[in-house]
C-alpha cells in the first residue's frame, strides 16, 4: 500500500448525496480478478454515454478536473455494496482523498486499506471546500494527514479527526495482515479457550 502523508492537488466537486458504489463502479466491471485498471470505468454510467462517448458535463470529464486527486462529495458517499472495486477504481483514476459529511461504513473502511484517506467534516466546512473545489484547476487544496488538516486554495484551514491506528497505517503504508500476524499467539490462545467454551463453533 502506498503511504499517505500530505497531498496538494485538484479537488473535484460532486455535491450529489448518496453516491453509491454502483455509481462509482458499475457491476459489469467487477468481473476482473485484478485490482488495477478500473480507473477508466470510474463513475462509468455518469461519465460515458451508452456507446462510450464522454459526457462533457460530468465533472471528471471537464478539462479542469481530469487530473483531480481529491473528491469533495455530498452526504453518505460510498453507500451500497462492499465492493472494494470502488476504492480501487478511485485510486486507479488518481483519487487519494475523499471529503464528505458522511460515508458508508464498509466503503470508509475499504479506503484505508488502499491508501485513500476519507475525511469527514461538518456541513459548513464541506460547503466551503465544495465552493473551493468549484474554482477549478488553479485552486489546489492541501491535505495534511500528520497535522490532520485540510487547507483551501485561499488558506482556510479545517482540522479533521482520524482514528490513530488507521492514521499510523496510512502514514507508514503498513499492511494490516502483517501487523495482525504479530499477534498470532493471542489468536492461538483465543482459539484454545473457544474450543472449550464454544466447542460447536
Amino acid at each position, binding site marked *: 500500500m502506498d503511504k499517505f502523508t500530505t497531498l496538494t492537488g485538484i479537488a473535484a466537486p460532486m*455535491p450529489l448525496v448518496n453516491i453509491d458504489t*454502483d455509481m462509482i463502479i458499475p*457491476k459489469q466491471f467487477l*468481473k476482473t480478478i485484478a485490482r488495477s485498471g478500473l480507473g477508466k470505468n470510474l463513475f462509468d*454510467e455518469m461519465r460515458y454515454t*451508452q456507446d462510450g462517448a464522454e459526457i462533457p458535463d460530468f465533472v471528471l470529464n471537464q478539462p479542469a478536473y481530469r487530473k483531480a486527486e481529491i473528491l469533495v462529495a455530498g*452526504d453518505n458517499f460510498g453507500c451500497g455494496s462492499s465492493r472494494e472495486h470502488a476504492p480501487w477504481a478511485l485510486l486507479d483514476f488518481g483519487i487519494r482523498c475523499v471529503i464528505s459529511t458522511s460515508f458508508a461504513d*464498509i466503503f470508509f473502511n475499504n479506503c484505508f486499506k488502499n491508501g485513500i484517506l476519507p475525511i469527514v467534516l461538518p456541513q459548513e466546512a464541506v460547503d466551503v471546500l465544495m465552493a473551493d473545489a468549484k474554482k477549478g484547476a488553479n485552486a489546489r487544496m492541501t491535505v495534511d494527514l500528520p497535522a490532520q488538516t485540510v487547507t483551501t486554495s485561499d488558506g482556510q484551514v479545517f482540522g479533521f479527526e482520524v482514528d490513530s491506528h488507521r492514521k499510523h497505517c496510512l502514514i507508514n503504508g503498513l499492511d494490516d495482515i502483517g501487523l*495482525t500476524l504479530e499477534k498470532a499467539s493471542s489468536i492461538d490462545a483465543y482459539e484454545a479457550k473457544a474450543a472449550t467454551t464454544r466447542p*460447536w463453533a
Partner: protein
Amino acid sequence: MTAAPRTLYDKIWDDHVVHQAEDGTCLLYIDRHLVHEVTSPQAFEGLRMTGRTVRAPEKTIAVPDHNVPTTLDRANAATMTEESRIQVEALDKNAKDFGINYYPVSDVRQGIVHIVGPEQGWTLPGMTVVCGDSHTATHGAFGALAHGIGTSEVEHVLATQTLIQRKGKNMKVEITGSLRPGVTAKDITLSVIGATGTAGGTGYVIEYCGQAIRELSMEGRMTVCNMAIEGGARAGLIAPDEKTFAYVMGRPHAPKGAKWEAALAYWKTLFTDEGAHFDKVVTIKGEDIAPVVTWGTSPEDVLPITGVVPAPEAFSGGKVEAAKRSLDYMGLTPGMKLTDIKIDTVFIGSCTNGRIEDLRAAAAILKGKKIAVKRAMVVPGSGLVRAQAEEEGLAQIFIDAGFEWRLAGCSMCLAMNPDQLQPGERCAATSNRNFEGRQGRGGRTHLLSPAMAAAAAITGHLTDVRELMSESV
C-alpha cells in the same frame, strides 16, 4: 457485584475479542467466513503473493453465485461470458488449493451465499459471520453478528481468522404489535429504512425486536436483517428463540448430541439484558405498516402502495436534487398514483426474498392466474429451495402463470449475469437495491415484497396485494 446490563450485540462482541488496543481498536475472532467469486480472487491472489495460507479452512465456505447464469443450460460453460467463467474457475481453484468447504455450480446445494449458509447450518446463533458482500447482515436473523467486508478484509480474515474492528453503537428498532394481512417482513424492513434513511444506521448495529419481529418466521427475519445495510447499519440482529433453535436443529453443520445441548444452553443467554443501553431507539407500530414500494433510486424512497409519487420540493437539503434526479431516471411525475405505474418485468428472487416462504407467498397470489407483464422470472435462492418448491407444486404454479423457472443465483438482483433490464425497462423486484443501473443500465427498479411482486405480475402495474387476497379483512 452484578455485571452491567448488556445488549445482545455487546455480548457477542465481548465473546469474540481476541485483543484490544489502547485506542479501542479490537481484533475480533471470526467464526464463519463466507466467500463468493466476485470479491475474493484478489484476496486469494494476495495470499499467494505473500506465501500465506488460510488459517481456518474448516470455517471458510465458498459458493459461486453472483455471476453464474440461472438458465437451465448453464452446465454448458459457453453460457457464461469469458470474464464470468474466469471468476468462477478462479473460485473453483482457490477452494481446492486452500482446502475450504465448497459448493460448486453443479451441486444441488449451490445458491446465494446468504441462503446457503443458514440452510447448511453454517450460521449459528452467537457467531461472528463475515462475507465480502454487504448483505451478510442476513445472518443476523439467527442472533449472529454478521456483516459485509471488503476484499482486503477478506484476505485479512483468510490469513488470520480475525478482523480489525471498532465497536459500533447500539440501536434498537422495535416493531410493536402485529402486522396486518398482506404486510410482510419486506414491508417492515423497507418501512424502517423509509423512516430512518439510508444513513440512519451508519455506525450502528441494529437489534430488531418487538412482537411483530417475534412473530416472523426465520425466513422473514432473514429478510428484515438482510436490508439492515440499506439503512446504513453495519449489522442487524434478532435475538434467537425457539423458532431459531428449531430451524437450526438437524442442519448438516449444526452441532449434534452433547455439543447441541451445550450450544443450546449458551444460545439461551443471547438476549439484551433488562436496562441495557441503546444509543438510538426507533419504534414503529406493526399495525401502521402497509405494503410498500419504492419510487426512486434509493431504498429510502419508499411509500405505502396507496400513495402518490412525491414532488422533489417535499424534501429538504441535498435530497431535493437527488429526488429530481431519481424521478427523471425513473420516468415518473409527481402526483401520479403508485398503482398507475405500469410494469414490464417481474423478478422474484435474491438473498432478500429467494427463500421457500417467499415463493409460497408469491405462488399463493399467482395460483390459477396469468401474468400481464412482458417478462417474469423466479430465481430460487438455492438449489434446495428450488427442489422444495418443485415438490410443493409451487414451480408449476409459476410456470402455468407464465413465469420463467430458473436455477439458483443472484441473477437480476445485480445483473452481473445475462439477466439484465434494458434501458427504460421497468421492473418490480423483490431484491434490495434500486440504485441507478443496478439491474442493468437504464433499468428502473421498484422494490417490493414477493406477494406484491406477484400482484404486479398479474395486473401489469403496481398493485395493492390486499385487493387480490381472498381472505383479506
